[in-house]
């Protein structure tokens, strides 16, 4: 398609000289006032988009029809209106035919509205005198096999757009300054990397993490593929950097409570959950000299309440006052107030440091930031839903994340892999790949979780290395070793003696006495069913968006896919942006990603989020409400309706009228639709404009 785009039409060739001249003297027109001389004159430009549109819509017929519409002074069609010669047709026609408005019938405004606005502006019109008729996404693509119907629908769309373009007015966009601070939500490897990049670029960054420590999922891993370096060893230096960076303000055990405002000026409220322990800085601020938590752990020793440690997947105990593991950042204890019995033993053992406050309450902190990055991470799919594999029912069936803790030297068993049922070292371990991934039964997830193949290969390597004579069996569908040095790693594990069985496991049965597991599977390479007795089963469970993702994304107005993963503005060309200006995505909250991909995406998001901040100001679309003061009765009902707190009542000439804070208004139209006196003018979506569109549709263009 791209090749076709650059192919020049003979007509365009003739004009290249002119185009070159136009380029040499760039038409820098800053929102000029359009001269209105009597009747509106609209130009209609119909795009073929190669065969995308022309394949199912009769362009000639539509053009001939457009020429018959009221107020249309010019109509033309072109192969690709978005191309340079295509845009030139628009700019030339505006000048030649003294147009007052333009309509391009092409793709979705999401794609090319900015392009055609610029072309309209270069032709000498105010850019907001342009209207787009979508005849591709909402027409030719969906009515591919109905040429007649699609052509008729294109005529309707153009007629409606012309009606609106006849009434469009000049609008002047507003520029607002951008706050020179950024917010990053989630302090896993994605959030940490993004914060470090922003901070190093000189931007004050608030890093908010819901857990007591930063590090995320990566801190739970033992080793990383394919290099086999220790996860904590490469992660902790970064954690320390984050803790120390002067430009990063770390807020752990905290959540985003609410978000208001817009790009450049977000007002964010953070809930700092009561952790019951004061940091040294907090203690100092309270006048406790030399006090505050130094992480000595004296409180931990005396606390009588024992709970499972979620960091260790519940396989190790923690107290009601706890840290997850010795390398936490910040090194600061936290009280789990749901299980604390407030016996006060910790307060006594803390002594003069006076770090513990059993009566601490949640605290709300207000921040002002220019841009925000969401790095919300992922969770493990509750694999017990696949009840044929017996997770939570059979003791020796574990998930991969549990395996990571069991094989990790700092884990609950000191790195000795043991069977949960009897503490014995397993001699035969089966790994079930695609456990709940690529699963169309309706129980699991339809997508590939992407990194399970690779970490399962790593797991196989680890048991071969650690337990002499232990045999790993990998049940797989395909091994997806897609990254740099990944395929080589796969060969290496094959050579080390791991057994690969291509086929899914239909059922697992447990021997009630030995607690061994019988795996029933189909070996699709040998085309026969098989049964295998093993000591332990590791499920490479699918991943899903983390529990808080949905709540947080709604605060920021970010959309998600059917599976709940956050949606980027464009999957290929704008992978870090979202449909909310100023909000960016990093890491696995967009979909399963391995560590290199997460870090790359985080760096991308940091770069994207720093651009508006370095620019210093951003232009807002001028779609805000305006009060027609002579009609406003000052009833104030709109003030309460506004979801963005953009409206207020003010005294003017002895009476009350409504006033709009333009920067806050999102142009949603709630007030304009409601106002009983018709006193609110929605710019670019004004009542006469919308009525004209409706009339055009129903009256078939005959006014």
């Amino acid at each position, binding site marked *: 398609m791209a090749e076709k785009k650059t192919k020049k039409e003979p007509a365009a060739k003739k004009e290249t000289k002119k185009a070159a001249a136009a380029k040499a003297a760039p038409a820098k027109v800053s929102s000029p006032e359009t001269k209105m001389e009597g009747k509106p004159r609209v130009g209609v430009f119909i795009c073929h988009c190669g065969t995308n549109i022309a394949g199912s819509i009769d362009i000639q017929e539509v053009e001939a029809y457009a020429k018959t519409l009221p107020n249309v002074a010019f109509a033309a069609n072109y192969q690709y209106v978005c191309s340079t010669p295509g845009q030139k047709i628009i700019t030339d026609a505006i000048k030649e035919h003294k147009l007052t408005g333009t309509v391009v019938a092409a793709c979705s405004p999401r794609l090319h509205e900015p392009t055609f606005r610029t072309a309209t502006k270069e032709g000498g019109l105010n850019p907001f005198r342009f209207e787009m008729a979508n005849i591709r996404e909402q027409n030719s693509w969906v009515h591919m096999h109905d040429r007649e119907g699609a052509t008729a629908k294109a005529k309707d769309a153009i007629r409606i757009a012309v009606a609106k373009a006849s009434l469009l007015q000049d609008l002047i966009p507003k520029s607002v300054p951008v706050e020179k601070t950024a917010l990053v939500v989630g302090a896993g490897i994605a959030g940490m990397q993004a914060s470090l990049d922003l901070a190093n670029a000189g931007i004050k960054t608030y890093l908010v993490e819901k857990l007591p420590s930063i590090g995320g999922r990566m801190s739970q891993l033992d080793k990383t593929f394919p290099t086999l370096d220790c996860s904590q060893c490469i992660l902790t230096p970064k954690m320390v950097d984050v803790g120390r960076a002067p430009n990063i303000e770390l807020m752990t055990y905290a959540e985003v409570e609410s978000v208001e405002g817009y790009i450049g000026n977000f007002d964010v409220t953070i809930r700092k959950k009561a952790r019951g322990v004061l940091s040294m800085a907090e203690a100092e601020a309270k006048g406790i000299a030399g006090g505050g938590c130094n992480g000595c752990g004296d409180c931990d020793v005396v606390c009588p309440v024992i709970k499972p440690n979620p960091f260790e997947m519940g396989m190790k105990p923690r107290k009601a006052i706890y840290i997850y593991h010795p390398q936490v950042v910040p090194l600061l204890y936290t009280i789990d107030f749901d299980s604390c019995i407030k016996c006060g033993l910790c307060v006594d053992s803390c002594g003069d440091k006076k770090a513990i406050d059993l009566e601490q309450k949640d605290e709300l902190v207000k921040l002002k930031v220019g841009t925000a990055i969401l790095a919300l991470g992922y969770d493990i799919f509750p694999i017990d839903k696949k*009840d*044929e594999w*017996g997770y939570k*029912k059979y003791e020796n069936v574990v998930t991969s994340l549990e395996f990571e803790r069991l094989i990790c030297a700092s884990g609950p068993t000191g790195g000795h892999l043991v069977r949960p049922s009897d503490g014995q070292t397993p001699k035969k371990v089966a790994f079930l790949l695609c456990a709940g991934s690529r699963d169309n*039964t*309706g*129980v699991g997830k339809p997508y590939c979780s992407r990194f399970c193949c690779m970490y399962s290969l790593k797991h196989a390597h680890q048991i071969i290395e650690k337990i002499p004579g232990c045999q790993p069996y990998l049940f797989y569908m395909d091994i997806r070793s897609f990254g740099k040095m990944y395929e080589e790693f796969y060969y290496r594990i094959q050579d080390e003696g791991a057994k690969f069985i291509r086929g899914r496991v239909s*059922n697992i*049965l447990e*021997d*009630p006495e030995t607690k061994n597991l019988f795996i029933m599977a189909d070996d699709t390479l040998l085309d026969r069913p098989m049964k295998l007795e093993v000591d332990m089963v590791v499920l490479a469970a699918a991943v899903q968006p983390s529990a808080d993702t949905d709540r947080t994304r709604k605060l920021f107005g970010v959309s998600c896919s059917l599976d709940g993963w956050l949606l980027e503005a464009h999957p290929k060309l704008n992978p870090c942006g979202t449909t909310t200006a100023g909000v960016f995505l990093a890491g696995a909250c967009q979909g399963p990603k391995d560590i290199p991909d997460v870090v790359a995406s985080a760096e991308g998001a940091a770069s994207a989020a720093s651009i508006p901040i370095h620019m210093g100001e951003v232009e807002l679309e001028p779609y805000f409400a305006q009060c027609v003061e002579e009609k406003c009765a000052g009833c104030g009902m709109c003030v309460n309706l506004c979801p963005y707190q953009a409206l207020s009542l003010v005294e003017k000439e002895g009476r009350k009228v409504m006033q709009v804070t333009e920067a806050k208004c999102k142009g949603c139209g709630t007030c304009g639709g409601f106002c009983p006196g018709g006193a609110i003018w929605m710019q670019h979506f004004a009542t006469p404009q919308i009525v004209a569109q409706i009339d055009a549709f129903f009256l078939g263009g005959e006014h």
Partner: protein
Amino acid sequence: MREYAFFLGCIAPNRYPGAESASYRTAEKLGIKLLDLEGGSCCPAPGAFGSIDLNIWYAMAARNLVLAEQMKKDIALICNGCYKSIWEVNHKLKHNKELRDGVNEVLKGIDMEYKGTIDVWHLAELFYDPQIVGVQKIRDSVKVPLTGTRIAVHYGCHLMKPKKERHFGTTEHPTWMEEMVAALGAEPVEYRNKMLCCGAGGGVRGYDLVHSIDITNEKLINLKEVGVDALTEVCPFCQLQFDRGQIEIKEKFGVSYDLPVLHYCELLGLAQGMTPQELALDLHGISCEPFLQKVL
């Protein structure tokens, strides 16, 4: 008294008439009146017919459904094979207009039309459903508790699977039939690979007998391992496979288990005071005598 059109199927009336008579009589004691479905044919067998020509399977099952529609009664049945055919065809026809139109085109030849006005139920699920009967009512109806017996349950594949098109929750570790066995005073027994197929279904028995009874044999080994007095099921085809299959296993493999196999309705009939003669237990391939001695 709730009324249902009782779809007999083929195996129960022909091989285990006791299961048929027990269904009528036990259901009546639990507030369910089973009405004869006049003119009912073979369901037809899902494996045998469905694997040769699906359209014949749809049309014949639809004919049986229309008979019940004409009675304006939901269908109740006691066989998993029938359940697969009648329930699933009803479900498919209700949700697929194209299929429904095709089937009605065929039915037109015998002046019938499928409308999709009734539902299909396995009698066992009606018994378990607390809105209709429920375990408590079953317990209350027991006159001769089966105390001291150890009974294992075979659910059968067509009743529970495919999971997407059934409504029983877990299909891998169900326990609702064990609850119904416990309600009779017996001790329900778990055993290895409980959800394995009986070996008969899907046309396997007709195609390859040795392969088929090999699967049955594996189940019987697993049952012997835990030691049970009887096996109960809710499918006469499974019953046939476990009961008469033991004779074939003895002939082909030289092993005997002598494990009595009873349809849940037969078991319930015994517990409600029906005599072995009324239940025609003497027609079983494997003698129920040792089990009866423990109970009566």
